């Protein structure tokens, strides 16, 4: 094949066709752009989350060669001299981190990092600026007591300046810190949390009652004899392990980033999978457009073939046009995606902070490679989608292509897309579901969902044909629409398939979210029995990181009308390589006032077992992920050593994606030496007003800082608010897929409108009025909508089943009870019908305005 010649033909012929059919080209371009935008938005937000977290780490610790970190609990300071003695360590520096609320600035907090300014000079990636905005010597930190440096964005937001003092509260300790410097992160640390604040580690330790404690030690190593750091790291780890507490995790610093990546993995994978749906829908539309293009230009292609263009060149021509279109669509999609990412930032940031790790994303971090990949995904989707109709076109003999007549009559029958491939896809759904659930390959759950969507797509033409066989309404337009729909099934089949995929996704996600919400709501109703809850105010925006002032417990116990006070402590850690939450409660209070929903337990009273020995209650998702049963044992790394804990019972819980290991408070404190509190649950005597006790406690606690005091209803509301926020992105992605599908309806009808120009002319000549043409196309859209929506609803239930029983179980391990959201389903269905009708209006209007004489001349 002469590529140059073909390319010339492409430029001269295909390029011009692109501009000749602007509406079709623009619709196609928009559909692809929305698909690519969804991917770009999600990838950018995911990227920003990880970069932001890494930037925050790097800001204080630079890029060390080796890190020792306390997981769940802090490390003793005495580790520092042990490490310092090691010959492989060239430089090391400790850090201590905490979250503190700022009572003078309600709702605000600082993520305070204590650093050693004398030992971290080689590692720092920030500069301190003084009042003259000139770089300051780090040692200036220690020249004045209680010195702190905050970021410029935080200073601007809180109207603070160098020289001001800042009251910070954490775990019942208060400190008056003096702002003497502003933090200027190095330019490559884009996305670092603007809540970060830096102080001398001694200041943090003494101000917040953490003497002798550190969180992390970062070290620079001397290379080994071969000049390699990796083997030096391994050797150091071997030497250090005997000296480290059980809860210390040592190794390369990348591990921490990888762990966060792992923690967010399922969350991000879910969003990525959802974002791909919009692109899949877009692919159907591209196939449809190229097929329409082929049909419309059948005789042109026949002419080119008769003039010597070979088959491969025909494919090159058509796929090339599609790629050109997708190049524009992808570029537009990347631009749109970045805008969408900006709007999603706050929601995703809050969700990640609520569920996983403290994160504050202020602006998107753009990774050119991600953008390139998303763009390539758009190109690949367009290329793949165009290839089949292009190949079909290349196989038509030139003499056939040159024959006059209606191209639609000659279009390949959609009958070939029928039951066999649909059955195959259905079987694949079962296989992938089984591998996700029992084969320990959770990601195949998404393939199961994709397979069922494809099965539906294959059935779309058959269902369309079935609808067309039903008696039509006794109106001329309805009768004509039925005939037109039947004949247009080669085109409508693909649009209906795209529509069914979008509707199935919308319905599936709607059922899943509704069921999940209803299950959680029901669980909250059953499991939250306390009348009041107290937590540090930063919990709302920074997650449960700041410890609760212990005075709150004694104040609550001393308050008249209080029957019992339940305590809750929570720390996040990794167990068996998986993220988890370790929690502690006063189980005697829990058993009497707020018993858990136990799913299975050892014989006897599991609460008693936990109170007497090293037993734990575990949440069902914790149990499912680790395949644990009552009686199973697991190792718990604590500051007092590695402890063997036996599972006493499994309970239902929806508070943590990573799962919960619940100990009795006494056991927890004995094993961890941690006396901290995260929140309190207060049970009142009958007849006592929760409002009055809440007000009284608020008043008593006011001098100690800011606290959240929720009533039972308030906590329930807050929990559901967090739930809804967590699914906000899902809703947006669902809307994007529906928007693409609605575009598909417009696209399909527009393509058919172009293809049927002459036929519309015949109808007009035979006496059809403009209104009849308009109604005919709208009825045709109704057939298309009915096919896609009916199939989508049925498939949507299957998708919901896969989301709840396969993907959820494989990734998260929760039990979600099925709740069919009838009103929402009716709204979604009506919304889709309306979208179809609205989508049909432009092509219907366009067709109805065609001049009959012009239309007849189109032959």
């Amino acid at each position, binding site marked *: 094949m002469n590529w140059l010649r073909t390319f010339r033909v492409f430029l001269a012929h295909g390029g011009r066709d692109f501009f000749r059919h602007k509406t079709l080209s623009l619709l196609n371009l928009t559909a692809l752009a929305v698909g690519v935008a969804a991917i770009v938005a999600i990838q950018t937000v995911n990227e920003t989350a990880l970069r932001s977290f890494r930037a925050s780490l790097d800001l204080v610790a630079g890029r060390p060669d080796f890190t020792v970190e306390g997981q769940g609990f802090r490390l003793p300071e005495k580790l520092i001299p042990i490490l310092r003695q090691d010959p492989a360590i060239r430089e090391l520096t400790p850090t201590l981190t905490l979250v503190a609320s700022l009572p003078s600035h309600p709702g605000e907090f600082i993520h305070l990092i204590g650093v050693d300014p004398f030992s971290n000079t080689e590692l720092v990636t920030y500069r301190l600026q003084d009042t003259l905005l000139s770089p300051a010597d780090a040692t200036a930190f220690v020249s004045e007591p209680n010195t702190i440096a905050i970021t410029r964005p935080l200073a601007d937001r809180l109207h603070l300046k160098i020289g001001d003092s800042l009251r910070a509260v954490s775990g019942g300790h208060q400190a008056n810190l003096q702002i003497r410097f502003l933090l200027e992160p190095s330019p490559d640390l884009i996305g670092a949390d603007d809540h970060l604040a830096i102080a001398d580690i001694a200041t943090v330790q003494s101000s917040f009652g953490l003497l002798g404690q550190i969180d992390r030690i970062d070290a620079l190593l001397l290379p080994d004899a071969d000049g390699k750091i990796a083997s030096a790291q391994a050797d150091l780890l071997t030497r250090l392990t005997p000296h480290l507490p059980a809860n210390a995790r040592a190794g390369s610093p990348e591990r921490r980033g990888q762990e966060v990546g792992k923690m967010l993995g399922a969350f991000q994978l879910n969003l990525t999978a959802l974002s791909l749906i919009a692109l899949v829908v877009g692919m159907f539309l591209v196939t449809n457009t190229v097929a329409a293009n082929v049909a419309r230009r059948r005789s042109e292609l026949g002419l080119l073939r008769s003039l010597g263009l070979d088959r491969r060149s025909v494919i090159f021509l058509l796929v090339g046009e599609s790629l050109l279109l997708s190049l524009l669509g992808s570029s537009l999609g990347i631009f749109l995606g970045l805008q969408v990412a900006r709007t999603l930032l706050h929601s995703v940031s809050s969700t990640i902070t609520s569920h996983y790790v403290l994160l504050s994303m202020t602006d998107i971090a753009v990774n050119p490679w991600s953008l390139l990949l998303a763009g390539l995904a758009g190109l690949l989707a367009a290329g793949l989608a165009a290839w089949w109709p292009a190949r079909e076109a290349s196989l038509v003999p030139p003499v056939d292509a040159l024959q006059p007549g209606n191209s639609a009559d000659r279009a390949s029958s959609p009958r070939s897309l029928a039951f066999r491939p649909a059955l195959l896809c259905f079987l694949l759904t079962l296989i992938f579901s089984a591998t996700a659930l029992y084969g320990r390959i959770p990601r195949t759950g998404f393939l199961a969902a994709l397979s069922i969507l494809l099965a539906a797509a294959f059935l779309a033409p058959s269902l369309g044909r079935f609808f067309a066989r039903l008696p039509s309404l006794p109106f001329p337009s309805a009768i004509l629409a039925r005939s037109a729909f039947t004949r247009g099934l080669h085109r409508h089949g693909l649009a209906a398939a795209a529509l069914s995929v979008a509707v199935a996704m919308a319905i599936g996600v709607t059922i899943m979210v509704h069921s999940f919400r209803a299950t959680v709501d029901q669980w909250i109703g059953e499991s939250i029995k306390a009348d009041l809850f107290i937590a540090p105010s930063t919990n709302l925006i920074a997650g449960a990181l700041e410890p609760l002032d212990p005075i709150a417990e004694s104040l609550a116990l001393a308050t008249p009308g209080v029957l019992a006070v339940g305590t809750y402590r929570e720390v996040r850690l990794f167990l068996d390589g998986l993220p988890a939450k370790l929690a502690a409660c006063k189980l005697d209070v829990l058993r009497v006032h707020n018993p858990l929903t136990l799913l299975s337990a050892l014989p006897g009273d599991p609460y008693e077992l936990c109170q007497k020995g090293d037993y734990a209650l575990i949440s069902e998702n914790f149990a499912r992920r680790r395949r644990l049963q009552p009686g199973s044992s697991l190792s718990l790394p604590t500051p007092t050593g590695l402890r063997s804990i036996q599972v006493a019972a499994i309970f239902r819980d929806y508070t943590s994606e990573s799962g919960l290991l619940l100990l009795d408070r006494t056991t927890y404190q004995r094993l961890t030496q941690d006396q901290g509190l995260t929140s309190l649950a207060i049970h009142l005597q009958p007849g006592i007003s929760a409002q009055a006790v809440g007000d009284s406690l608020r008043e008593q606690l006011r001098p100690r800082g800011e606290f959240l005091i929720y009533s039972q209803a308030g906590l329930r509301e807050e929990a559901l608010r967090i739930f809804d926020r967590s699914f906000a992105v899902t809703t947006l992605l669902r809307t994007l897929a529906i928007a693409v599908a609605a575009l598909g309806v417009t696209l399909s009808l527009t393509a058919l409108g172009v293809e049927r120009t002459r036929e519309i002319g015949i109808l007009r000549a035979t006496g059809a009025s*403009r209104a009849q043409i308009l109604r005919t196309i709208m009825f045709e859209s109704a057939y298309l909508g009915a096919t896609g929506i009916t199939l989508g609803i049925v498939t949507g239930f299957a998708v919901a089943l896969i989301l709840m029983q396969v993907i959820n179980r494989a990734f998260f391990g929760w039990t979600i009870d099925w709740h069919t959201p009838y009103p929402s389903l009716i709204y979604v269905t009506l919304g889709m019908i309306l979208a179809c009708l609205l989508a049909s209006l432009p092509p219907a209007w366009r067709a109805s305005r065609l*001049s009959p004489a012009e239309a007849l001349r189109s032959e």
Partner: protein
Amino acid sequence: MLETRDLHKSYQAGEARVDALRGITLKILPGEIVAITGPSGCGKSTLLHLLGALDTPTSGQVYLEGHPLHSLNDDKLTALRRLKIGFVFQFFHLLPTLTVEENVLLPLLLSGRVNPLARARARDLLTSVQLADRSHHRPHQLSGGQLQRAAIARALIHQPSILLADEPTGNLDSASSNAVIELITRLARKEKTTVLLVTHSQSVAATADRQIQLVDGRIQS
């Protein structure tokens, strides 16, 4: 019954202006069969479109049974086409998913007049065009000649005052052409329908009562 006065039609083709008709004045009497002939591009089809209320003139007047087609709005033109005009096209143009009988009934379907009487008339017409045994077939099951005969039945189903045929034999072999022309003339005379026939073929034109020859948008004879 059909009259034009100084009819002009111009198109804009890119930057060039094409004068397709340049002052056509003619009169066609009820029941008359008239052939319009002329070389390609002389304006035959354009004239047919104006007479058939499919297009509006740039200037001049067209009257169909006293109705001024040049000044009616689209709804009124549509109503006239629906009631008074029948079309036969070169490429037959039957809707492929409708049966032959349904295609024939199409004009009545559009005006909501499909009833047992209309169905009986469709069957009569199909018998007249020798397609009674093909009435439930789909268009792709018919030959070119049969398709055109079905198209003629469709053009006459609503008893139009005028039948406009644009190259009705242009896509047929000679045997089918003769049969189609014979059919049009026979049925037109039976139904007392005026026929305007656009054709390249001298033999087809010879069957008409009168011939009008167009050259460069003007009537030559």
